[in-house]
């Protein structure tokens, strides 16, 4: 055993490890003076302007990622993409049966079938976009660790993916509302009024666009929170459930004013999801221009959520690659 290596006699020298000198020399401490003016800190967060610019350069990635994942979403099911249509249709049927017929929540609602179809289909899109955005970072850890791109691309792509996935759903929704929305089934107190295809139907597009901005903003905000504390994921689930009931998806708002709970109505009117639903319903079911107040609230939410969400997400940019 070479416990006494003859070379371990320390000799003074500065050769470092540059050469294997015959005599043993201890490495001298070195100080490297660097002019760092040309260097950048690796992994540092970009300034907000640069960040947005860079995100714009990655827009192709964003769209391609959304599209390829939507097209492969249901490829484990033997019925494939048909589920994208069948699933919300079945859900609408379930809610219609339970809430419309058994619990009779249809009180005070004209064209209740159309009302509930719009509610369920649109709200599914909203929750899908928010929850998808919320776990986008946590779920795509491998992508985050192997590529360098502005991380905001992931939550945004999750929201856009939900939009792509919802295109056939919305188409189906329009068809169902047009043909079945004014169908009268037993137990509808307020009755029905015929649905006509008018220019008001086009108001759907700006409403969904604003909704998309709200969802993206919330998704960005939640994505950072879920990344920091995975536990928040559970709260997001509960939150969307509460949101569902606070958005008048399956019942009319008027039932609350009859009960004297006016504050609930105020809360609902400030709720972006309710605004989206109300706008689409006024336009499609009753062929009238939606209350301008809804547009104001929705636009305020869209701008506010987007700005705050984006900044919140951007501030956490350096924390998204960490191991968990």
């Amino acid at each position, binding site marked *: *055993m*070479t*416990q006494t290596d003859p*070379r*371990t006699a*320390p000799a*003074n020298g500065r050769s470092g*490890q*540059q*050469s*294997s000198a015959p005599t*043993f*020399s*201890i*490495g*001298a*401490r*070195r*100080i*490297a*003076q*660097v*002019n*760092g*003016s*040309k*260097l*950048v*800190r*690796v*992994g*540092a967060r*970009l300034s907000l302007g*640069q960040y947005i610019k*860079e995100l714009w*350069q*990655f827009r*192709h*990635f964003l769209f*391609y*990622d959304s599209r*390829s*994942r939507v*097209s*492969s979403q249901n*490829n484990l099911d033997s019925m494939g993409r048909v589920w994208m249509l069948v699933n919300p249709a079945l859900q609408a049927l379930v809610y219609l049966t339970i809430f419309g017929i058994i619990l009779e929540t249809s009180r005070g609602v004209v064209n209740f079938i159309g009302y509930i179809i719009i509610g369920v289909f649109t709200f599914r899109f909203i929750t899908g976009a928010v929850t998808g955005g919320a776990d986008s970072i946590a779920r*795509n850890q491998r992508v*985050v*660790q*192997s*590529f*360098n*791109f502005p991380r905001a691309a992931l939550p945004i792509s999750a929201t856009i993916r939900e939009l792509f996935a919802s295109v056939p759903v919305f188409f189906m929704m329009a068809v169902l509302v047009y043909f079945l929305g004014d169908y009268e089934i037993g137990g509808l107190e307020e009755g029905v009024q015929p649905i006509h295809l008018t220019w008001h139907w086009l108001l759907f597009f700006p409403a969904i666009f604003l909704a998309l901005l709200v969802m993206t903003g919330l998704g960005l905000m939640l994505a950072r929170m879920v990344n920091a504390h*995975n536990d928040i994921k559970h709260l997001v689930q509960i939150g969307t459930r509460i949101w569902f009931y606070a958005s008048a998806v399956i019942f009319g708002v008027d039932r609350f004013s009859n009960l004297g709970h006016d504050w609930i109505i105020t809360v609902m009117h400030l709720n972006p999801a309710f605004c989206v639903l109300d706008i689409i319903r006024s336009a499609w079911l009753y062929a009238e221009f939606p209350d301008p107040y809804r547009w104001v609230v929705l636009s305020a939410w869209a701008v506010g959520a987007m700005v705050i969400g984006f900044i919140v997400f951007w501030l956490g940019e*350096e*924390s998204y*690659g*960490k*191991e*968990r």
Partner: protein
Amino acid sequence: MSAPVNGYTPRRANWLASPAAKTTEGYDVDPETLDDGFGEIEEIAWDDAPLTQSAPTIEKIDPKKVSVVVDGAAMTYRVRSSNEYLKSKKRVAREVKRVLGSGWLEIPALEEVSFVVNRGETVGVIGTNGSGKSTLMKLLTGKIRPTAGEVYATSTPVMLGVNAALVKEISGRENIKLGCLAMGLSPKEAEQKFDMIVELSGLEDALDMPLKAYSAGMQSRLQFAIATAVDPDILLIDEALNTGDAQFRARTKKRLDQVRSQAGCVFLVSHSLGTIKQMCTRVIWIEQGRLLADGDPEWVCSQYQEYTDHKSNGRVRSAQIVYDRTMLKLAPVQIEFTEGTRPTRAGGARAN
């Protein structure tokens, strides 16, 4: 042989490696407590002791040539663990953690490491498994932020390896496009690179199959081919040379040489000492989370060889001696930025 081997680390080596751990301002013993009767004699701090350590050599690094500066970067991972309650000292805390089934586990992966790499250098990174090589690479690419210290570079280094993320559900063709876009190429550039990637991966016949249908070898070939699509200035290669069959390896080597010749500075992580000696102008040896050697490839590789030989034959103590001896020879670098030039700016994520 009966000596407790694991705890053996000479003090001087420790002191050399971590200047921060010094006690009482550079004196190994608090001078106030010493009274040897000699009266007023100037105490000599370790730093100035002529026998062991000369004053630090000051090297000026040419600002035109510098490429990567790692300034005291250290990394401690914090991961969730459900067994962590076993270590909790307090009984109540232990019980609470046991019931929750959740706790934090801290893994010190890399101690403070500093070095400067200039343009034109090809740096080999060696070390046994679990020594912290991959952590260093992750710090270099900025995927994770070091818990202490920072990494600076002229542009964001790009990792080229077999760990690029692929999406299992979509076809190889779509994966190639997605990967290119994720690296910041424009759709046009991705289109241009497409043929090259397909040719390199040799998967012409399997392009439209979903990735689930690929064999492990095919997947890693595709990953590698996608990763090499960019021509980064600072390039990190992680074990990439060891994938695939002989035919693929030949193609790989050709492409790597091409990328390497275009890159300003290359880091090569490999377990193959032959490759390292052949390609590198300098080698960094990381062991047990410490920078152990940094210098001439022949010399560092010979030390590493000796170390691993001892280790694999169970001669723990001999291995430790090689370890200490190598560490003593290390000339540790301390980074100083000229007044006010410490970078704070962020670099873009785009590869080019």
